């Protein structure tokens, strides 16, 4: 038959066999080369580490030769590095190992200024240094690249003196030139540093006043001016001036700085979907080096996969929801091998109910302050915290966190007091009729409560509000919606009540959400709340650079917001964290868990090479 296996077929089979064998051999040969490269890399790594240790010892003045420069770390011991130095003194202190963390979504690019995601800024914070940094425990500004600063009397000029001996990851020194370069670079219109540049509007110029001295001059006194100047991440002139603006804008991984960690190959880094992001320790770091060798972020979008990965020990740190936190805490074996924290932090997001005072241009029932105050007193916010957020939160009194000096500590939250609330409503002309509350206009009191439908916690809070106000005769129509639909409604100022949240910052600026000029369509004062006294005080605070003076004004602002209740402030969330137990020197500080630069793993517990 014609299908018989012939000589021709035999030859074809032999040829295919030869090709397959050759491919296999090539791969084996390639792997041998790989092995040699790996060995060479190991050797270089060891030598770099040894060198770094020697440099560090020299810098700390143990063996100071006649030619060695006075280095940065010698004064580091007194400022900014206390907790790392304390960790170094523990008997089981050791360097090595890696930390595995997670991102829900990978950042699109790591290049500073042009990246937009929060995740990218998290990675950047390990690689780039700022002039000063906030101590995570005291929230005060402490020296980083700059060792001191002075603010002029007119509050327009801030002078910084830089430390000597600060170097970038390539060993080149960080000087005033780099600071000036960074600010010019950010303000260069051809660089797409859109968000960073928007904040620099009030900055007039930055000048070099010496090799290690820089001066920031502002156009007008502005309360954020110190944060802008001290908090700017410094870029290397030598590294970044190699690229044209177009190359920089289009780049994905040009992340290079003087921080404790570095990207191993910034010029060739590009996002590889599915691959973790890895930083390695900067062996040339000028400060006290961190103990952990590598920081790795895995991308795990699915929450149940994240919990499983943490249980498995595939990731070392995990921020659970209140529900997951309780679940994990119930697992004794897991609790025994992890650290866990529920910390009240000053920059946590807070939840509120926004009472719209002008719906579609018409004043609403909430235009009356007494009605807003009564609404707050009809809600038992402590029960919301204990039952819905499972105790992982606290009732707040304004947009200022009680943990920051911005808040007036003497202000107590409005109590849960139904009788007083009812009295206030009666004073405002409301009365009960057949169990429902009738307004001065003779119509029953009812409103629509909008919230983001994708948030399951808000759903429970909304049900609780409906129930509580229902008891007082108010009919609440709960109306969940997609966020973009809700935003459209609020922009058009066509809604009644909105249940939502704002993210928290260390110093909150109430201008955009409560001042009269933010009622116009671009502002976020979507409740149309207006109080001329508040406007004046906020403007005054915003143009005060000195912290103590400004905080005194913020206290007055706080009292007005508390009194006027444009929002009913519900609660501020706690920060919940789990960290693998092999890490030592992990502790709670004011802003959450202390930074991982301060952690270490004893040699016997180390998991990764």
């Amino acid at each position, binding site marked *: 038959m014609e299908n018989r296996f012939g000589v021709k077929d035999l030859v074809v089979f032999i040829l295919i066999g030869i090709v397959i064998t050759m491919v296999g051999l090539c791969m084996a040969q390639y792997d041998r080369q790989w092995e040699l490269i790996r060995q060479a890399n190991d050797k270089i790594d060891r030598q770099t580490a040894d060198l770094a240790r020697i440099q560090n010892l020299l810098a700390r003045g143990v063996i100071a030769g006649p030619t060695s420069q006075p280095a940065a770390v010698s004064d580091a011991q007194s400022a900014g590095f206390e907790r790392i130095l304390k960790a170094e003194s523990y008997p089981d202190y050791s360097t090595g190992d890696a930390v595995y963390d997670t991102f829900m979504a990978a950042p699109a690019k790591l290049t500073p200024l042009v990246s937009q995601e929060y995740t990218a800024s998290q990675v950047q914070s390990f690689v780039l240094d700022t002039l000063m940094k906030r101590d995570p425990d005291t929230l005060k500004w402490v020296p980083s690249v700059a060792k001191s600063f002075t603010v002029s009397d007119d509050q327009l000029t801030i002078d910084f003196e830089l430390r000597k001996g600060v170097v970038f990851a390539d060993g080149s020194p960080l000087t005033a030139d780099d600071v000036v370069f960074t600010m010019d670079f950010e303000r260069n219109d051809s660089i797409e540093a859109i*968000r960073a540049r928007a904040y620099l509007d009030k900055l007039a110029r930055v000048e070099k006043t010496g090799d290690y001295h820089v001066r920031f001059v502002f156009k007008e006194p502005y309360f954020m001016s110190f944060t802008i100047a001290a908090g700017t991440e410094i870029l290397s002139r030598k590294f970044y001036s190699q690229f044209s603006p177009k190359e920089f804008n289009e780049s994905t991984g040009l992340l290079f700085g003087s921080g404790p960690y570095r990207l191993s190959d910034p010029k060739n880094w590009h996002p590889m979907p599915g691959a973790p992001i890895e930083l390695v320790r900067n062996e040339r770091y000028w400060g006290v080096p961190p103990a952990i060798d590598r920081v790795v972020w895995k991308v795990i979008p*699915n929450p149940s996969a994240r919990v499983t990965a943490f249980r498995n020990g595939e990731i070392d740190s995990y921020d659970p929801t209140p529900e997951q936190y309780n679940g994990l805490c119930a697992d004794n074996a897991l609790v025994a091998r992890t650290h866990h924290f529920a910390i009240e932090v000053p920059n946590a997001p807070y939840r509120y109910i926004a009472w719209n005072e002008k719906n579609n241009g018409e004043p609403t029932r909430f235009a009356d302050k007494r009605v807003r105050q009564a609404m707050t007193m009809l809600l038992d916010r402590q029960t919301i915290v204990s039952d819905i957020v499972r105790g992982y939160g606290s009732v707040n009194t304004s947009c200022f966190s009680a943990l920051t000096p911005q808040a007036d500590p003497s202000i107590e939250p409005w109590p849960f007091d139904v009788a007083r609330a009812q009295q206030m409503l009666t004073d405002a002309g409301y009365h009960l009729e057949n169990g429902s509350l009738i307004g001065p206009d003779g119509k029953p009191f009812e409103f629509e409560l909008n919230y983001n439908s994708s948030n399951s916690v808000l759903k429970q809070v909304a049900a609780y509000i409906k129930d509580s106000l229902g008891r007082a005769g108010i009919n609440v129509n709960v109306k969940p919606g997609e966020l973009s639909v809700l935003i459209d409604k609020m922009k058009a100022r066509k809604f009644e009540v909105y249940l939502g949240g704002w993210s928290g910052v260390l110093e909150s600026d109430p201008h955009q959400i409560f001042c009269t000029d933010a009622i116009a369509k671009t502002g976020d004062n979507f409740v149309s709340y207006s109080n001329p006294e508040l406007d004046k005080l906020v403007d005054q605070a915003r143009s005060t650079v000195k912290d103590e003076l400004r905080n005194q004004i913020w206290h007055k602002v706080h009292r007005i917001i508390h009194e006027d209740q444009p929002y009913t402030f519900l609660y501020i969330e706690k920060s919940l964290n789990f960290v693998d137990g092999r890490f030592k020197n992990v502790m709670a500080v004011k802003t959450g868990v202390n930074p991982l630069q301060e952690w270490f793993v004893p040699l016997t517990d180390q998991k990764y090479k």
Partner: protein
Amino acid sequence: MLNYVIRRILLMFPTLLGITALVFFVMAYSPGGIGGQALEADAGSDSAVAAKIREYYEKRYGIHKPKIVQFGRWLNQISPLGLEIKDDGSLGHFGFKAPSLGDSMEQNRPVMHLIRERLPLTLLLNLVSIPIVYILGVATGIQAAKKRGGMFDTVSNATQLAMWSVPTIWAGVMLIGLLASRQYLKLFPTSGLYEVEAAHMAFLPHMVNHVLVRGYLLDVIWHLILPVICLSYGSSAFLTKLTRGSMLENLGADYTRTARAKGLPENVILYRHVLRNSTLALITVAAGILPSMLGGSIVVEWIFGIPGMGQLGVHAVQFRDREVVLAVTLIGGFVSLASQVLRDILYALADPRVSYE
């Protein structure tokens, strides 16, 4: 035949135009509008800052222009023949130019780069799972049809029905919970396509200091097992049913009876005559598989943290990222239409009776 193919290809252009226009205008008129989330990212911040950011987006992406103008600009941008676009966004001379898919508003990167990064992942997942789906589906289908009503047929029928009914999202979470968790069996990784160590491994499995290192190849295979199971079980159940059904139909046909009557061996009847005639149904299904191969599986990608084309598309829609949404629509639309043409050609090849003249 050639006439028909050319006609179909020419028809693709107006169809694609219609698809992209529909997607664009639905997106533009939906709440939030184009780039809605980019503009909302700064809610609560200083109004001067928010205004600056808005101004930037307007200048860079022209989102303040009338919607029809925006769509027109996009059409011009993807066309090889049209008005030249200068660096500052203004239009130049008419002529030939390099077509471009534009830049993503959210990621501030060329859309082409995003697709180039993500398409290989989606292709890898699908190229592994599609052969499994077909081999498993067709083989089980033939076996079930061969011994209709037998033990194998009954059992496979029940299991296929169960497999077809179980939603992927549930199966994926269960697989992770049971097969990738230390609480039960820790056999597989929870997510991703490879470990960070894999980058430092050689390609093949090998020994380092008497410890087996799995190597890059095994690491990737190990990571692919759960996602591939999730991707394939449902479709393979569907294909089994389909193959079994059309095999049974052909087994009862007159020509099969004739073949049996003239004494052909059973295997020849089954594989040479019946199976060949049953492939028409499989071809119809295959035409639907190609576009979904490029589209990616949103659910599987999300559960296992594999950022392929599915995630890119969904995320872009949430963000109202004009350029990415339109690019994904354009590619998806093109592949769907192309695979329909391909299907028609394959019909003609598989069945000589089919003619388009």
